[in-house]
């Protein structure tokens, strides 16, 4: 099951927590007894200055980036481009908090390597509506109380906008099925369905 961090009192404490978690898991790996998979058996180690140049289009703007190839789209958005609307929940493709659109399709930013997105168009929650406006789906989530803590909300909204574009809002059951990749630990599911229904089939544009 995906572990979604609670929203903390301050951004600083959440970052501190995540950094410490990462350090702890790295330490665990370092002392692990068991060797890694067969793929580790051979192959030259990468050079120290192992970086790739990537041009990413995010919310209509091109960004020239030099990245470690391990960098996910999620970390690129949050740590390099400071677009922190896209959330890191499980970071394992299980919770949907990091849902963004690539070339108009909803995908998981945590399982996407940024280096694989050369010249592709990424849309995040920040780019869903022009200027300071709200997308109709954002407004509907407010109007229908489609969240409590709000951590999963950007991913829910990106998924919901794509769901309408895909034509999967035919019934409550269909909405629930096609929103199943977005977990909400507060349990706002009924009002999320209300919000999606309220926008209706015209809400898929962005």
């Amino acid at each position, binding site marked *: 099951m995906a572990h979604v961090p609670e929203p903390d009192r301050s951004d600083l404490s959440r970052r501190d927590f995540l950094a410490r978690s990462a350090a702890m898991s790295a330490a665990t790996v370092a002392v692990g007894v068991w060797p890694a*998979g067969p793929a*580790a058996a051979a192959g030259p180690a990468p050079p120290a200055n192992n970086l790739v140049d990537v041009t990413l289009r995010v919310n209509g703007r091109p960004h020239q980036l030099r990245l470690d190839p391990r960098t996910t789209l999620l970390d690129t958005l949050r740590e390099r481009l400071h677009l922190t609307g896209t959330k890191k929940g499980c970071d394992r493709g299980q919770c*949907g908090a990091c849902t963004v659109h690539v070339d108009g399709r*909803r995908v998981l930013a945590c399982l996407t*390597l940024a280096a694989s997105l050369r010249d592709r168009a990424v849309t995040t929650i920040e780019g869903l509506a022009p200027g300071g406006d709200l997308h109709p789906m954002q407004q509907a989530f407010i109007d229908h109380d489609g969240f409590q803590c709000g951590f999963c909300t950007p991913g829910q909204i990106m998924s919901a906008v794509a769901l309408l574009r895909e034509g999967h809002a035919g019934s409550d059951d269909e909405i629930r099925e096609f929103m199943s990749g977005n977990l909400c630990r507060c349990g706002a599911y009924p009002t999320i369905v209300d919000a999606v229904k309220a926008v209706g089939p015209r809400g898929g544009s962005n």
Partner: protein
Amino acid sequence: MRAFTFDTPATVADAVAQAGDGSAYLAGGTTLVDLMKLDAMTPTRVLDINRLPMRGIRLEGARLSVGALERMSDVADHPMVRARYPVVAEALLRSASPQVRNMASIGGNLLQRTRCGYFRDPDTPCNKRAPGTGCPARDGHNRAHAILGTSNDCVATHPSDLAVALVALDASVLLRNRTGERIVRLDDIYRLPENTPHLENQLHPGELLTEVSIPALDWARRSTYVKVRDRQSYEFALTSAAVALDVRGGMIRNARVAAGGVGTKPWRLPAVERALTGRPMRLDTFESAVAHAADGARPLAHNRFKPALLRRTIVRALTGLED
């Protein structure tokens, strides 16, 4: 995640020429990036194959050809797939989530690694990830594990729903290597774990799956996929059944049956197919035909329910094909 170099080969020939020890192909990334983060897979070189011309869904003669880079969602939505092979579309739509289906390629889906929690955790032994270290699943958390095709060294299931449907349909895959290409029946690709569970398939090192080919089967229009799981959506199978029936005048002329969630590979059930053939399309036929569906099963402490659940899953799938 361990460091790796990243390359984007321009052609299929370049890709297989660049592949070597420690390399991994990247398509949708939903398996590879996940397992690299867990240190369960640690390639030193990643070859991004997404720009390669392994796309398209088209008829080739009577067969349906599907490029290996086609995404799960696009295959599931394709009119020819939905009309000719409903079992394929249904298996795909009951897999993963919409986001994952938009990302994951069908080649990667067929070659995805097991979801066994011990395989995914490098701090535990696992004969599949680290040969010779042991199998904690045999006496551990094994509710979701396999009951068919298991060995003392490994009881992990193959997690793909699509593979179960395609094995039922006798699909083949096209494999490209440095010296040429070859066509292999999908069912023959998968190996039983025996005492080498780290060898999961018959692909040679660096070989690339480029295309899936599904034979013509007129009566596969009457086919379906039933999946039983702990949650209604976004969960792997405890048991599943892919079935297709050729029914004329109330009699079953031909049958295809394969099971998922129970085997160390997608599990075709020829004995059940034979027991259905030539019999009337009725519930008592289904119930007697599945009597031997789990023959040879070796249930574990926490999945003793699986043989009975498998039989019921197949009966439910067959019942769904009645007019």
